[in-house]
């Protein structure tokens, strides 16, 4: 699969974000619906905790009676670790697809564990991007490079909790009747834009690797590169944090601006996919537009179209950025700064420049 998030010379193994487990004879010994007294396989609890602490999301695709299996997971003290468990009689591939939709992350970041060759083959056939693992090898999971991020940031450690907060948000969003703006206003969002500090660099490096939908170029930046850019007077490196009444989304965005004599160029703009419906990419662009206007510079932006970043294209083009040159998938945008937009009134913007 073409993947613009891994430019030449930097093609590393794509990190996995989610492990989907079967239950019977995979997570636990025995078959629940056959009346077996099931027990967690040895080492499974530690494994779950380890993966969770690395920021790897966990879920379930099991053919079982939903309520019985959930009760058993509660009893075993592990239910809380699994997001959007799919326990039903549908195909495993449809369960994995459902989880993928709910989590809104790429299929190629999924690992599926099952003891049945049939189920693994079914998933591999229907969803070739998903890596399948034989449950017999479950103890090797925590050593898989794809599941071993070299650094674990504070945001990664809180990832599962943040998804749970998101779930509560979307429940209230579904229940909300009326204009979307009013719903957004009810969230009490605060968007904080600050200059990146030393503590932010690991998270920013992680964001450049993990983000594909709301990513303007897909270029990865290493910790060292970011550190250099952070100190370089010719660049601004911005980091954004979003909070609302359900909690903090964490550090969810960044922008890198190269400041030339007469022109500034946004080299990179990205936002975590969890914020896609909150319009904060637009807010960050509005901030950069205001700054460029005040500094009386022309404002350009680099953009590389991929199969997944349409949302970022919309963000730019609907913020009045226009294509001034194009080379294959690489675009250069310019904003003529004639349309100035205030921040939407449903979000409080705090700038720490």
């Amino acid at each position, binding site marked *: 699969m073409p993947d613009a998030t891994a430019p030449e010379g930097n093609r590393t193994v794509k990190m996995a974000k989610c492990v989907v487990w079967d239950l019977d004879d995979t997570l636990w010994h025995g078959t629940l619906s056959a009346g077996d007294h099931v027990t967690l396989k040895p080492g499974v609890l530690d494994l779950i905790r380890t993966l969770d602490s690395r920021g790897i999301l966990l879920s379930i695709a099991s053919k079982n009676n939903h309520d019985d299996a959930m009760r058993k997971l509660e009893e075993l003290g592990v239910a809380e670790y699994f997001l959007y468990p799919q326990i039903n009689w549908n195909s495993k591939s449809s369960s994995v697809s459902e989880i993928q939709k709910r989590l809104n992350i790429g299929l190629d970041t999924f690992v599926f564990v099952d003891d049945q060759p049939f189920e693994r083959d079914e998933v591999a056939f229907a969803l070739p991007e998903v890596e399948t693992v034989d449950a017999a090898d479950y103890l090797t999971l925590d050593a898989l490079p794809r599941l071993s991020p070299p650094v674990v940031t504070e945001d990664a450690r809180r990832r599962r909790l943040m998804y749970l907060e998101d779930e509560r948000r979307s429940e209230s969003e579904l229940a909300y009747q009326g204009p979307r*703006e009013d719903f957004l206003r009810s969230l009490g969002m605060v968007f904080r834009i600050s200059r990146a500090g030393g503590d932010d660099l690991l998270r920013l490096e992680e964001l450049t690797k993990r983000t594909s939908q709301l990513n303007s170029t897909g270029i990865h930046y290493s910790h060292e590169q970011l550190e250099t850019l952070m100190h370089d007077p010719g660049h601004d490196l911005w980091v954004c944090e979003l909070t609302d009444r359900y909690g903090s989304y964490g550090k969810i965005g960044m922008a890198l601006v190269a400041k030339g004599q007469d022109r500034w160029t946004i080299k990179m703009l990205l936002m975590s996919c969890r914020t896609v419906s909150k*319009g904060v990419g637009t807010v960050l*662009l509005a901030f950069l537009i205001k700054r460029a206007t005040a500094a009386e510079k022309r404002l350009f932006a680099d953009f590389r179209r991929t199969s997944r970043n349409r949302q970022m*294209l*919309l963000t730019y*083009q*609907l913020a009045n950025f226009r294509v001034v040159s194009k080379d294959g998938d690489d675009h250069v945008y310019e904003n003529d700064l004639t349309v100035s937009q205030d921040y939407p009134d449903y979000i409080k913007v705090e700038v720490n420049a």
Partner: protein
Amino acid sequence: MPSESLTSMENGAAADTAAAIRNYVRANMTALRDVDLRDDDNFFEKGFVTSIFAMQMLDFIESTFGIEVPDDRITLQNFSSIDSMTRMVGELKHAAGE
């Protein structure tokens, strides 16, 4: 006459499209609730349009009319009035052979 009936059919479709867009704008843009809005009024000259609203309109248009707006049509200008959106939807439907 065939050409006339075609035109009136197209006009009818455009009127439906405009009505659907108008209703959506009214229902979803809080700032426009109590304003007399004409189809050719430019939202951003009136100071109302935000990029986020344009994104929401794009989403609405694609799901309601079953079209995908190509990259080069995604401009703030195309989302600046009920007329401009209606025209764009008509052209995209026409191009899709409807």
